């Protein structure tokens, strides 16, 4: 990384990358870009910052303020004091911030840059950090919790963010339980902080981080956008939803895989999509955004990655997102084009059954309006998991020609008519298979059959889909209101 975190927050300061670390450390605290006052000021709307706790040596600082007008509570590690290590006083600052946020029902944003518990305070600091974990858990699902990791966040400072709803990682952010020195002394493994807990491992492999940013400023902007989406959800104005022909965003060849991102962005109001976990388990896309001005969440299979199959990681990713939306009363749009669950030994051993069950559980318990759109196909176990009628979908829509089936027609007749097909001469096999498949589709598959038995409510044209989705969500809001799931948001 050439750009460092600190430069963006305080443009008056020389770019941190050009200043050797030894010189930076000696800066007076008032000028240090790691000073929590600077960071909180950069996070919050201009002039809105009001300190909740004294600016002292506790290692933490809390404030209230607004982001795009939405009232929030924020706290920030003070990395100028013992590298942001957390003792009893610093932890009390975080407790104060949480109590205020819970009282106000406001989103809370934590800015982290901390080596973890203060060693010098011994087990008292562990106890204090543990109390933060407890209050975060109590707050889970009640108020949106957003973390921005701007520097190293080790041990307790790693688990703090991990307990929250959305974790943003700045360019200098590093998250790990134990640092490189401990890893080296215990396992002999030589690894640096970047490889241990930087953007690559957490953005792609671990799923710890929801959003990555190239600059500290961008990281804070992600937190602001998330807080606004969850904290000021707005009203769905159906008359402001305009239709566009979404069919153009899919390839003509129905067997061809495609990137679902343009479709997700096309469903949402222009420029509002905020994708969480974009690089981790990319075969399912989870994004917050707005539809008709109101915050909604979108879960979408992405055929470009793994053919859009569900697998153990994507099921887990989607489950957590569904529960996040349910906890905060965010309606869901579920965009389905799924060939099934990914088969294989690796998947089974990786717990695809256990983790796939999370997705069934998450949708089945979900009380927010949740509308399913089947664009091309939905098969088998994945059909059920993707917010089917049986799991309680508010409405299930399908585009004309969509396949709703246990499996593809040809695959199905090869199982059902195995003996008969074995007797067919090889040169006639394709023809007989095609006839059987067409017959099978008439009887068992096809979207018309799904409509007939009531698992698909209506067939909508791609060119009418945005308004149909908005109308379905609006109808549910008008009759049932926007309810919130009575549960926390455990980091599944």
């Amino acid at each position, binding site marked *: 990384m050439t750009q460092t975190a600190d430069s963006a927050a305080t443009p008056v300061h020389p770019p941190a990358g050009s200043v050797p670390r030894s010189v930076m450390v000696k800066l007076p605290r008032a000028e240090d870009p790691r000073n929590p006052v600077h960071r909180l000021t950069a996070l919050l709307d201009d002039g809105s910052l009001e300190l909740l706790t004294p600016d002292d040596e506790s290692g933490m600082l809390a404030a209230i303020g607004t982001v795009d007008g939405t009232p929030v509570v924020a706290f920030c590690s003070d990395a100028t004091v013992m590298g942001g290590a957390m003792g009893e006083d610093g932890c009390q600052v975080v407790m104060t911030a949480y109590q205020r946020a819970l009282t106000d029902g406001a989103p809370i944003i934590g800015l982290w840059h901390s080596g973890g518990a203060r060693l010098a305070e011994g087990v008292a600091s562990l106890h204090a950090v543990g109390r933060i974990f407890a209050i975060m858990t109590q707050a889970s699902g009640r108020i949106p919790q957003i973390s921005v990791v701007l520097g190293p966040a080790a041990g307790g400072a790693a688990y703090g963010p991990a307990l929250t709803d959305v974790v943003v990682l700045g360019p200098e952010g590093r998250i790990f339980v134990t640092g490189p020195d401990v890893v080296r002394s215990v396992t002999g493994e030589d690894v640096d902080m970047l490889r241990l807990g930087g953007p690559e491992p957490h953005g792609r492999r671990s799923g710890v981080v929801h959003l990555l940013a190239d600059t500290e400023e961008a990281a804070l902007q992600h937190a602001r956008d998330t807080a606004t989406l969850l904290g000021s959800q707005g009203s769905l104005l159906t008359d402001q939803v305009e239709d566009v022909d979404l069919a153009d965003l899919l390839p003509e060849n129905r067997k061809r895989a495609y990137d679902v991102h343009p479709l997700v962005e096309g469903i949402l109001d222009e420029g509002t999509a905020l994708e969480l976990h974009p690089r981790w388990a990319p075969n399912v896309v989870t994004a917050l955004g707005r539809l008709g001005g109101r915050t909604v969440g979108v879960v979408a299979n992405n055929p470009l990655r793994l053919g859009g199959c569900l697998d153990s990681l994507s099921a887990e990713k989607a489950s957590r997102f569904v529960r996040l939306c349910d906890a905060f009363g965010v309606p869901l749009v579920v965009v389905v084009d799924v*060939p099934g669950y990914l088969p294989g030994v690796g998947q089974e051993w990786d717990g695809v059954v256990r983790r796939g069950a999370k997705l069934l559980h998450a949708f089945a318990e979900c009380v927010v309006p949740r509308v399913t759109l089947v664009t091309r196909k939905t098969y088998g176990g994945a059909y059920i998991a993707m917010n089917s009628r049986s799991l309680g979908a508010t409405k299930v829509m399908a585009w004309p020609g969509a396949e709703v089936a246990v499996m593809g027609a040809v695959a199905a007749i090869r199982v059902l008519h195995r003996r008969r097909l074995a007797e067919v001469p090889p040169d006639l096999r394709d023809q007989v298979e095609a006839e059987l498949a067409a017959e099978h589709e008439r009887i068992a598959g096809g979207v018309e059959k799904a409509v007939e038995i009531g698992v698909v409510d209506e067939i909508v044209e791609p060119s009418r889909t945005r308004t149909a989705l908005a109308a379905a969500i609006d109808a549910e809001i008008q009759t049932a209101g926007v309810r919130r799931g009575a549960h926390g948001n455990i980091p599944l």
Partner: protein
Amino acid sequence: MARKQVVEVVAEMVASVVEIGCAVGDDVTPESTVLLLESMKMEIPVHPEHAGRVREIKVSPGDVIQEGDVLVVLDPA
């Protein structure tokens, strides 16, 4: 960040190679379809994550590839 010398395009899943969409020496971008695979009865285009110049193509049409196999090697642009 340590700079990688080459960029590898790696298979995400078991598939068979339908078509090669690039040649050694081609400049490719994340929009380029360097390979077309078939899996789960779908044709899945493979796009490199970063732009680069094709150094080596390690598969041929008809090959069955496994998750993790290196398909194409690029020199980063």
